């Protein structure tokens, strides 16, 4: 297969919750040019931001509502089984957690981009989920471990730190 063919065939599932998470995800779109992208988010009205792309709406959930969390997880698993993406990318929070963990089950490579809102420390979901990502990114240089790649395993999974590679700004 030629490089241009494989590039065309790359399937991406881009996942986020609402508000700033979605706004940050939208700013990554030039990175998806040439791929087949489907979006998953919590607000049906965001469809207007991604015309021409497949678009899946799931319920929102905080970790305090167990039923909503289970429903969200089930819907994300169903979407992953239907979409079979090569790459799952998320800016958080709860939907990104499930998409990233379940994404492994369909053998997708995964990207966690921690929100720029987390200036002083990684987000809670980022600390829980980011270390399972194939590419774990923070948008703050001081939160990345100097000289270590986010996709590297040099320090072992327990001590893994995210990589810094620029911000959504």
């Amino acid at each position: 297969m030629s490089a241009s063919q494989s590039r065309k065939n790359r399937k991406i599932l881009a996942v986020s919750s609402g508000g700033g998470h979605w706004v940050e995800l939208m700013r990554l779109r030039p990175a998806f040019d040439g791929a087949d992208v489907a979006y998953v988010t919590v607000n049906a009205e965001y469809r207007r931001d991604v015309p021409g792309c497949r678009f899946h709406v799931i319920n929102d959930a905080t970790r305090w509502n167990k039923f909503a969390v289970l429903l969200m997880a089930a819907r994300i698993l169903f979407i992953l089984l239907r979409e079979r993406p090569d790459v799952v990318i998320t800016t958080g929070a709860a939907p990104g957690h499930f998409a990233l963990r379940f994404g492994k089950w369909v053998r997708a490579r995964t990207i966690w981009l921690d929100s720029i809102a987390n200036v002083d420390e990684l987000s809670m979901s980022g600390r829980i989920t980011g270390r399972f990502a194939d590419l774990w990114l923070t948008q703050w240089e001081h939160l990345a471990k100097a000289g270590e790649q986010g996709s590297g395993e040099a320090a072992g999974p327990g001590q893994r730190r995210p990589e810094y590679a620029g911000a959504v700004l």
Partner: protein
Amino acid sequence: MIFVTVGHQTPFDRLIRAMDDWAASTGERDIFAQVGRSDIRPRSFPAMQFLSPDEFDRRMREAKAIVGHAGTGTIIAALTLGKPLLVMPRLSSKGETRNDHQVPTAAYFSSQGYVLAASDEKELGPRMAELLAYRPQKTLPDSASPQLIARLRSFIFDELRAGGGS
């Protein structure tokens, strides 16, 4: 119009009340607020709980200045339009968020010349006077930094699956 927005999660009545007091004391009436899931009824300006994305965009574009919580969605939306923005951070001690992440967000974006920040309701009035004459020193392009886009593209399109099982 001055557009006030608190995002779509929890209410932020401390900001709305402070704006209401400022409007009452200055006589400014050209204000519209999006207040979230709150029963608050400002005396001095109209308010709605939620706006559709289209309506939100229209209000942002038409505003001469924006006042908001220190959420990244609000900050990025204002700065891509080049609008003067005053942010006030939500505080966990007041039940406005889970944690105080908006405090350093407000400090960072104000220190870099992107926005004005008021740390609390007492600072809001004085900062409002500044906001009406403020032009952000920096604005934002429509997408993420070229460095981040390039890193993502290289992972998405060039890197091969590592090994399998891991």
